[in-house]
Structure formats: structure tokens, C-alpha cells
């Protein structure tokens, strides 16, 4: 008997049919992949399973019994936990407190604090993340560390089914491997896992069976060993033979070599200890490195979001003006945050406002917004990036995670900066849309823009960057031509004590 | 030092009103200052500390002011209690701390104070009722707009008015007496506007029991063009009331003598401190002022106590 069985599950959000008929069967100890394009309904399905909201129709059975959770608490009692796509920790609680939240070991209501700490320690150790201080406030951790804590929290609850919504979207390779090891152990204990990811190679690594969602319907299911990537993609998009070349043609830059951004000895305590590099027109400079190595902080410092010292010159002009994002934007710098929910988007506000947020002067006259123009500009970006079910007037919060990320990227297209600082630009974006993003990044480089791109996804770094530098413990290695790097050498440099030595 | 240094005859006396922005309290203040000045010629040095509660409609705030003086080494307190019961404890604590208290303006439910210097509020209400009855020839419908819940002095005025009306003028019907004006002119104006919209066409009279309610009601009547068409009797003094009476928009006000209250309050306290016997109850009287007697010197003196002479 299957552990979990779904039949004809439907869910509408107003006029949007998020789920239009999903069938699913999961056996105990099975790791089941749920794949589909952005907005296909994957997260919605998991939300229904974890009791966040009820389905409109359809039948859910757990152990053969009708399963109708009245809320997340109820789902948890019945053994289903959910690792959300958007991180959701309590920022004011410590790591240990977050991990045992809702399941605090206690004697008559008094928390057993030792047990709380012990549990957190054990889980983090299992994950090979001993660098995370269990007493630290969750809000002070980096995104990847928060992701780890969130996963640990789910593992802490003894559950029968774990729902994982893109758990690796901001993990580096090392943590991903630890996670897979843990998933293997869970599977042996008979725990079932539903696993969402846009990385097909990951999916093949940990899961046995798959279900493809398309437009809210389950369109294919089976063993992964029976299908090729191209077949999977065909199921996802509903057409045959689009074996898209993800990264496009390697191009020979025809833009004259002109230095636009020169950075010397940049430090931004405590994360960035030393970074020097040159960025030229028409090139894509990739930055690799481990979790917490300081790449995000490097970009934030360059954009004026974090205090820094060192010499930064823009188009041969040493930047003296107080570095604020406003000044940077005026100097033609654009920034894409890795944390779209907290630093990127205005979730309640319309898509149009989000897309045009960095430069309202382009769509306004003397402070008055030209609404038709704003609309037109937004429509254009929406179709260019294929942002699903987005109307300019709809709040961004109503989009799926990947489509929100596209809005954040689309804002840069609208801003049209000279220098782009991208931090994990394809986080949560489906495989076909990634190609769209890469195409746009390429196009911008070809048009003479300079691009600095932080990524933890090695194929991406090696696939579209011209040169790559690696950050290790706050020190940036010299940049070298992408052809000189291999995945192994990047990892080697990333874990070295002093990357500059390694590279020389 | 807690007991008075009667050999040098220097007394510090705290005078605690219910508020400080109303003209009524200013008059008490001026009266108190006058008493202090008068003693100077008798070689008794009286220092007045004038301090009201921060929020003017809150017992608790006044309790805090009284308490604040307990640790300050003053010789006596002259208090206009906001409430006859709420201020009992602090007054008794003052007594325990050796600070005598004189009550002015309205009574306190305690045997501790050495004297009560006040006008008879109930009688004030009765005066207003008699005048109203006379003006309406004993028949018609009227409104009573109360001041605030639980304020004893205005409650007595309202009661005096209503009781007198019922006993002496059975032909006059009080159509509403459950609406409150609230603490300020603004709330009083709003309340009157709403009230007049409902009853404006059927009533011939209006009574309000203190300065802010009278002023607010007057504004509302002026705004709606009803001023002068309705017999209106108020309470307390204000320049605009005088003008209104001249303009026949107000038919009378019942006034007390706050200046005299302040003066007698301090005198009683100093006499007590000097060891002289004092009376337990001193009545400072209420007077009805109407357009008819408005210009008489007695009225003018009540309407315009010499504030400027004694304040500053």
C-alpha cells in the first residue's frame, strides 16, 4: 500500500488554476522527484500536503486513510514536515532554538536547554556544518547557513514524509553532498521524501521516481532510469525536441577591451579580507567559492550596501562619493541580490512597480508616472523573460518562487546598468528559463556591459563566464581565463588557506 | 523640616487645583496669591506652590501630585479634590506625614482636612433651575447636557437642577439628561451639535453645568443659528459668556467665587498653622448672573476677578 496517495487534486487562486488535477503515489522509503517549470504548481502541491491551505477538490490518502490536514500543526502531528522554498526561520531565535521549534524537549513546560543544544549540535554535525554557532541568532546567518538550519529543523522532527522544496537552491556543492548522504539515511529508515529541484543532475543523484507537473497537472511519472533529460524537459514544456543548449554558443568578444571597474585591496570586515580585480567591458567575470566565503559581502560592499575600505575606481575614476546604493545606481551599477525576499522585492506591490523600482525617472515626467508607459515596459520584460501568469498590476507575492526571481532579474534589464553585480542570478529558476537568463546576460556582455557574477553552481560559472576568480575565506584569488579552470581546481582553490598563492 | 517654623513665620503651602488651563482655576490661584500678599504685611511669610495634575480629568494624576508633595517638606496643602473619595488616601497619608490639608471647591469624604472652603454646588443647580422655570413660565421641554461621569461638583449641580425642576416646575419635561459633554470645549461642541440635531426642534431650554460644557454648547448653538432661540443657562465665567449674554445668546450663568475660595483656603491654612481656631465649613456662595444684573458691580467683580494684579 502506498504511504501517500493523491488523486485529482485541484487548487485555484481566483482565476489562476495553480493545480488542475494532480495524481501522485509515494511508497515508504521512496525519494520522489517533483519537477516542472516555474509556476507549474510544485510549491502549491507541497503547501496542500503540509496543511498550509486546503485543496479545492481531489482526494488525499495517507496510509489508505483520508488525509485532510486542518493546518500545518495537524500535518506535523500526522508525520509530514515541509522545508519551504522561501527560507522561514525566526530571525530572533538562536539556531538551536529554531531547530527544536515546535518540538522543544521539556519537563512540564520547562525547556530542557541542554537537550535543545545537543540536538542542534548533533544535527549540524551530521550535516558537516560545525562552523554554525548554535547560539547565534538565526537572522545573522548567511542564506546558505539558514538553509542548513531550516533543513535540520525538518530533520529534527521525527516524521514519515519530508517535503523538500528546492532545498539546495542556495547550498554549495559540499552541503549538497551532505544533504544527499542524510537523505540516503532517511530512506533506509523508511522515510519518504518529495524532492523539488530544478537541477536534473541532482534529481538523478538522489531520487528514484519522478512526477512531472505541467500547468498544474501531473503529466508523467515513472522511474528516472527510464527517461533521458531531453525527455524530461519535453514533458515539462509539453513539446518535443527542444534539447536546448543551456549556455548557448561560446562567443568571441568583439567589444574593445576597456577597463570599467578596478578594485584594489577591498576589505569589508568581517567577511571580506582582501579582494582585487579588474572588470572589463564585454566580459563576464565569475566568482566561485564556498558557503560563507564572503562573495555576497564583496558584492554588497561594491554596491554600497556594506561598509568597506580599499580603492574602487569606476571607469578610471576613483570613487570618492559616499558609497550608497543610490550613488552606485546613478553611476550605472546594477545589483541583483541573492535574497529576493528580504533585499530584492516588494512582495505586496505590483510586478510593474517592482520591475521599474530602480529608475522611475525613465517612466515619469517631473515626478509624474506615465502609467501606460510603465505598463508597456513591464509587459515587454514579462514576455522577454517568460514570467508566468504575471500581469503588471498583480502583486509579486502571487508569483511562484522562480517567477519572482525573474522579476528581480527583469528589474536589471529595465535599469540597463553599465556594470552588473549578480549574486546567484538563477536561484530557483527552471532549466529552460535559465537559458533565457544566460541568453540575456550574454547579450548584455556583447552589448558592452561588464558583468560580475557570483555563483555556487559550477556548470554555470564554467558555462558562461569569460574569466573566473575564487573566493576563499574572504580573500579573492586572481581571475583567470575560464579555460584554465576545472571544477576540481575551483574547489581546490576554494578550500585553500590562501587562494592567491594557489593561483599563482 | 515638617512642622512650621512658627518663630520665623515662614510657610510653604502647596495649592493643588484640578487643572490649570481653565479660568476658574486661575482665579483660585490669584486668590491664593492675594492671601499670601496680605500676610506679608503681618510679617508672615507665605510661599505658594501652584501645581495641577498633568491630565486635567484624571483622579490618578491628581493623586500623584499630592503624593509628590509628601516628600518635599511643605507646611500645608490646599487641595481642590477631583473626587470626594479618591483623594482620601493621599490626604490621610499627608496627615500621617504631618502635613495639614484644607479642602477647597468640592468636598472630601474624610474627617482629616481641617476645613472645607467651597460654594454649595447643589444650590447652584437649583438657582439655574429656578431661572429656567421662570423663563419658560413653567412649561416646555429642556435638555441637560452633563459634564463628565463621576465628577462630584458638577454632578451636584446637575442634581440640584433636575431635582428643583421636578419639584417646582412639573410642567417642564427634561427630554434628555444622559448625554455627557466630555472634558473639553471640543467634545462639548460635538455633543451639543448631535443633541440639537435630534431635539433642536422640540426643546426650549438647555442647561450646562460648567465652563467647558457651556462654552462648547454656546459655539454649537451659534453655528446652527439656534443661539438666542433657546433659553440657555450655563455655569462658571468666561469673557465669551459675558458677550453672549449681551447678545442675548445666553440667558444666565451661575457663578461661584473662586477668587474668594483661593483666598480663604490659604487664609484658613495659615490661621491653622499659626495655631488659631478655624471653622470646619466655609461657604463662599453662588450667584446667578443674568443679562439684567450683568452690569451691576457685584456681578462685574465676580466676572472679572483681579487676576493680573496677583498672577506674575
Amino acid at each position: 500500500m502506498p504511504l501517500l496517495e493523491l488523486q485529482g487534486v485541484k487548487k485555484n487562486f481566483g482565476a489562476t488554476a495553480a493545480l488542475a488535477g494532480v495524481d501522485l503515489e509515494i511508497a515508504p522509503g521512496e525519494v520522489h522527484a517533483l519537477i516542472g517549470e516555474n509556476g507549474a504548481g510544485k510549491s502549491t502541491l507541497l503547501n496542500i500536503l503540509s496543511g498550509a491551505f486546503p485543496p479545492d477538490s481531489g482526494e488525499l490518502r495517507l496510509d489508505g486513510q483520508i488525509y485532510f490536514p486542518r493546518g500545518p500543526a495537524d500535518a506535523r502531528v500526522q508525520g509530514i514536515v515541509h522545508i519551504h522554498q522561501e527560507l522561514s526561520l525566526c530571525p530572533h531565535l538562536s539556531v538551536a532554538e529554531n531547530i527544536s521549534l515546535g518540538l522543544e524537549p521539556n519537563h512540564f513546560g520547562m525547556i530542557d536547554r541542554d537537550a535543545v543544544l545537543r540536538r542542534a549540535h548533533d544535527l549540524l554535525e551530521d550535516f558537516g556544518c560545525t562552523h554554525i554557532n548554535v547560539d547565534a541568532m538565526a537572522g545573522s546567518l548567511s542564506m546558505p547557513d539558514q538553509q542548513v538550519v531550516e533543513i535540520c529543523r525538518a530533520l529534527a522532527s521525527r516524521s514519515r514524509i519530508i517535503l523538500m522544496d528546492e532545498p539546495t537552491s542556495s547550498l554549495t556543492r559540499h552541503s549538497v553532498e551532505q544533504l544527499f548522504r542524510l537523505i540516503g539515511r532517511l530512506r533506509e529508515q523508511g522515510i519518504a521524501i518529495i524532492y523539488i529541484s530544478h537541477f536534473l543532475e541532482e534529481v538523478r543523484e538522489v531520487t528514484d521516481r519522478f512526477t512531472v507537473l505541467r500547468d498544474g497537472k501531473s503529466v508523467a511519472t515513472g522511474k528516472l532510469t527510464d527517461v533521458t533529460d531531453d525527455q524530461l524537459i519535453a514533458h515539462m514544456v509539453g513539446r518535443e525536441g527542444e534539447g536546448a543548449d543551456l549556455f548557448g554558443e561560446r562567443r568571441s568578444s568583439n567589444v574593445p577591451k576597456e577597463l570599467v571597474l578596478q578594485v584594489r585591496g577591498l576589505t569589508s570586515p568581517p567577511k571580506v579580507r582582501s579582494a582585487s580585480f579588474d572588470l572589463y567591458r564585454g566580459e563576464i567575470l565569475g566568482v566561485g567559492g564556498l558557503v560563507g566565503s564572503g562573495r555576497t559581502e564583496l558584492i554588497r560592499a561594491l554596491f554600497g550596501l556594506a561598509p568597506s575600505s580599499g580603492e574602487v575606481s569606476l571607469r578610471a575614476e576613483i570613487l570618492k562619493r559616499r558609497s550608497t546604493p543610490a550613488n552606485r545606481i546613478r553611476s550605472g551599477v546594477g545589483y541583483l541580490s541573492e535574497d529576493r525576499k528580504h533585499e530584492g522585492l516588494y512582495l505586496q506591490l505590483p510586478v510593474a512597480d517592482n520591475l521599474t523600482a530602480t529608475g522611475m525617472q525613465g517612466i515619469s515626467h517631473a515626478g509624474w508616472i506615465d502609467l501606460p508607459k510603465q505598463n508597456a515596459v513591464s509587459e515587454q520584460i514579462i514576455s522577454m523573460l517568460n514570467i508566468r501568469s504575471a500581469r503588471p498590476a498583480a502583486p509579486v507575492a502571487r508569483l511562484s518562487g522562480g517567477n519572482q526571481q525573474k522579476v528581480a532579474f527583469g528589474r536589471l534589464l529595465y535599469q540597463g546598468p553599465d556594470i552588473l553585480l549578480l549574486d546567484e542570478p538563477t536561484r530557483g529558476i527552471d532549466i529552460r528559463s535559465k537559458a533565457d537568463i544566460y541568453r540575456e546576460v550574454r547579450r548584455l556582455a556583447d552589448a558592452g556591459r561588464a558583468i560580475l557574477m557570483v555563483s555556487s553552481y559550477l556548470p554555470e560559472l564554467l558555462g558562461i563566464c569569460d574569466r573566473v576568480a575564487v573566493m576563499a575565506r574572504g580573500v579573492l584569488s586572481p581571475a583567470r581565463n575560464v579555460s584554465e579552470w576545472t571544477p576540481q581546481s575551483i574547489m581546490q582553490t576554494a578550500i585553500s588557506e590562501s587562494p592567491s598563492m594557489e593561483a599563482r | 523640616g515638617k512642622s512650621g517654623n512658627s518663630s520665623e513665620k515662614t510657610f510653604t503651602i502647596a495649592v493643588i487645583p484640578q487643572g490649570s488651563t481653565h479660568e476658574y482655576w486661575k482665579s483660585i490661584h490669584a486668590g491664593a496669591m492675594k492671601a499670601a500678599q496680605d500676610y506679608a504685611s503681618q510679617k508672615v511669610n507665605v510661599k505658594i506652590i501652584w501645581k495641577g495634575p498633568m491630565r486635567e480629568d484624571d483622579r490618578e494624576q491628581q493623586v500623584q501630585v499630592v503624593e509628590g508633595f509628601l516628600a518635599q517638606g511643605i507646611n500645608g496643602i490646599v487641595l481642590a479634590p477631583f473626587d470626594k473619595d479618591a483623594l482620601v488616601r493621599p490626604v490621610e497619608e499627608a496627615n500621617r506625614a504631618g502635613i495639614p490639608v484644607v479642602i477647597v471647591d468640592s468636598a472630601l469624604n474624610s474627617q482629616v482636612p481641617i476645613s472645607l472652603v467651597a460654594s454649595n454646588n447643589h444650590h447652584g443647580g437649583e438657582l439655574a433651575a429656578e431661572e429656567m422655570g421662570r423663563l419658560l413660565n413653567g412649561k416646555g421641554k429642556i435638555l441637560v447636557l452633563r459634564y463628565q461621569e463621576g465628577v462630584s461638583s458638577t454632578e451636584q449641580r446637575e442634581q440640584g437642577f433636575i431635582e428643583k425642576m421636578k419639584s417646582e416646575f412639573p410642567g417642564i419635561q427634561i427630554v434628555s439628561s444622559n448625554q455627557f459633554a466630555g472634558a473639553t470645549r471640543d467634545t462639548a461642541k460635538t455633543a451639543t451639535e448631535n443633541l440639537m440635531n435630534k431635539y433642536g426642534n422640540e426643546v426650549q431650554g438647555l442647561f450646562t453645568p460648567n465652563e467647558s460644557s457651556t462654552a462648547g454648547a454656546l459655539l454649537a448653538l451659534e453655528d446652527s443659528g439656534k443661539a438666542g432661540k433657546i433659553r440657555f443657562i450655563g455655569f462658571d465665567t468666561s469673557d465669551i459668556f459675558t458677550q453672549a449674554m449681551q447678545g442675548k445668546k445666553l440667558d444666565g450663568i451661575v457663578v461661584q467665587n473662586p477668587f474668594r475660595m483661593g483666598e480663604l483656603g490659604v487664609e484658613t491654612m495659615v490661621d491653622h498653622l499659626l495655631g488659631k481656631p478655624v471653622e470646619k465649613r466655609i461657604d463662599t456662595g453662588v450667584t446667578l448672573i443674568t443679562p439684567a444684573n450683568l452690569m451691576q458691580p457685584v456681578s462685574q467683580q465676580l466676572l472679572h476677578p483681579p487676576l493680573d494684579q496677583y498672577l506674575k
Partner: protein
Amino acid sequence: MSAGWTAKTTAMFSSPARRRWLDLFGPFIGLVAVIAVFVMLSESPGQFLSPANLRIVFAQTVIVAIGAIGMTVIIISAGIDLSVGAIIALSSVITALALQHGWSAISAILAGVFVGGIVGLVNGLAITQLGVVPFIATLGTLGIARGLAKYFANQQTVNPPATWINELAVSFPEKPWMLVAPGVWIAAALAVITGIVLKRTVFGRHVFAIGSNETAAKACGIRVDRLKVWIYSLGGLFFGLAGVMQMSRLRQGDPTVAVGVELDVIAAVVIGGGSLNGGEGSVLGAMIGALIMAFLRNGCVQMGWANYVQEIMIGAIIVLAVALDRYRSKALA
């Protein structure tokens, strides 16, 4: 915000036209409901809806309404201002004093409005430069402005000579063709202008942006601190104007007036759909919120209920009106 948005936003949906219609007219439902209740309860519904009574209600709403316009901007930006009542008192005193000193009516008005703007500026600076949360910063200026009002007024009320300012907020305007007091027209005009500014200008969108996500706004190059100073100063100007209206209603500057008005003003904005977490709210909604409260108060008096019944009814109806609104938007989700 993160706490609530999923729940909140799942409540949104349906076709754009329908939504826009609802956004616009949704709040009216509460108002209509309140009026309908009183018309049904009342023995003489005609009186409740008589032009005279409507004039009274409108005149009584002016102060809260003008305050609510400024408060809407502040609340959308995820701020709050508790100093409203104190600013109203201060501005009423300053206007009256200016008139007493022989200033012209128009300069006296400007003085009152200006002084409100100054307090607002102080609020903005305390919030951005001293890093004090709006609740505390404006609680502080509440005390300061109230104290200054008493100081300037010499702890008395200030009775200025009569000018046309006194006509601004009367219930029955001298010129009958005005229908309602000039102050009502002024409030309406300002509401329309501010509504348009919020929806159609870069300033307005930035107000929504910092209220929705301040961190993101900073990263999008919005000068958040500067914008906040503008927002609180603008709010102060509105509260100052409300103070002028207060002085017009009472014909005097009263340093003790308008205690606690801030709660009414904030309630008006929230009843009208504003969220204290920022990013949501509309001037039209706030105006309706202010009217709902004024009709409630007026209606309770018309019913001849005792004050305590009024207080209970008003409390209950405010909660129910908002609950109804939430229910409506949820049911349509």
C-alpha cells in the same frame, strides 16, 4: 510582515477589473452598513439623513479627516505618528496667537500649518538620525508639542479676534451655496490630491516601496532616510492644518484640546484598509474610515443612547466593520 503576507496575499485573486472595483468601493460597504443600521434603528430616519445632520457630521469629520490624510502617507511607509493630537493643539494655539498679534488670517493659517511641519520634521529627524522607532519618537514629540502649546498659550486658552478662519469649520456655512463648510471642501480637495500623488507620482510609489520592504528600497537606490523626513514633515503639515480647523471650530487656541485624537486618526486609516505593517492603505479608504467613525458617534447620539452604550456600540461596530471587510476580501479570494 513576513509573518502575515502569505496569509494576507492568498486572499487576493480574481480579475483585475473586479479587484480594482472592489478596492475602490470595498470600504464604502462598511460606511453604508453603519448608516443603514442607524436608519433602520431610528424612529425618524429622515432626521439622521437630513441635510442639516449631514452638515454636522461632515464638519465634525474635518479634523480627523485632514489628520488621516497625513497619517495615511505615514502608515503606508510603515511608520506611525502619535503626536497628532499634540500638534493639533500646538497649531491651534499658534494660529490664535498669530491672530492676536495682528497677523492676517492667511499668515496665521500658514503659521499654524508651518509649526505642524516643524514638529513633523523633528519626528523625521529623530527617527532617521537618532534611530528611534517612530512610536517612541512621536510619543516624545507628543509631550514636547503639548508642553510647547501650553507654554505659548501661557497655560490658558487663547482667544483671538474673529476672522474668516472661524468660518472654515462651522457646521452651517454662511453662504448656503457652499452646502458644507469650506473646511470640508478643503479636506476633500487635499484627499483627492494626496490620493493621486500616492498612486501616480514617483514620491508616492517610493512611499509604498519603503513601507513594503525597506531593505529592498535601500538596495533600489531610494534615499530612505531623506524620504522618511519628507513623509513625517508632510504629515506634520497636515496635522498643523487640522489644528487650524480645530481653532476654527472652537474659535480659540486651546492647548488641552484633541487629547487622544491620534487613535481616531490611526483607526480611520486602518478601517480604510491601511496596514500598520506598511505597504498598504489608501486616502479614500481613510476618508471613509473617518466618516464611519463620525456617523457612528453621531448616530449613537441621535438614538438618544447613554454615553456608555455609545462607547460600547462604537467599539463593537469598529471591530465588526473591519471584520466584515476582512471577511469580504477573504470570501472573494
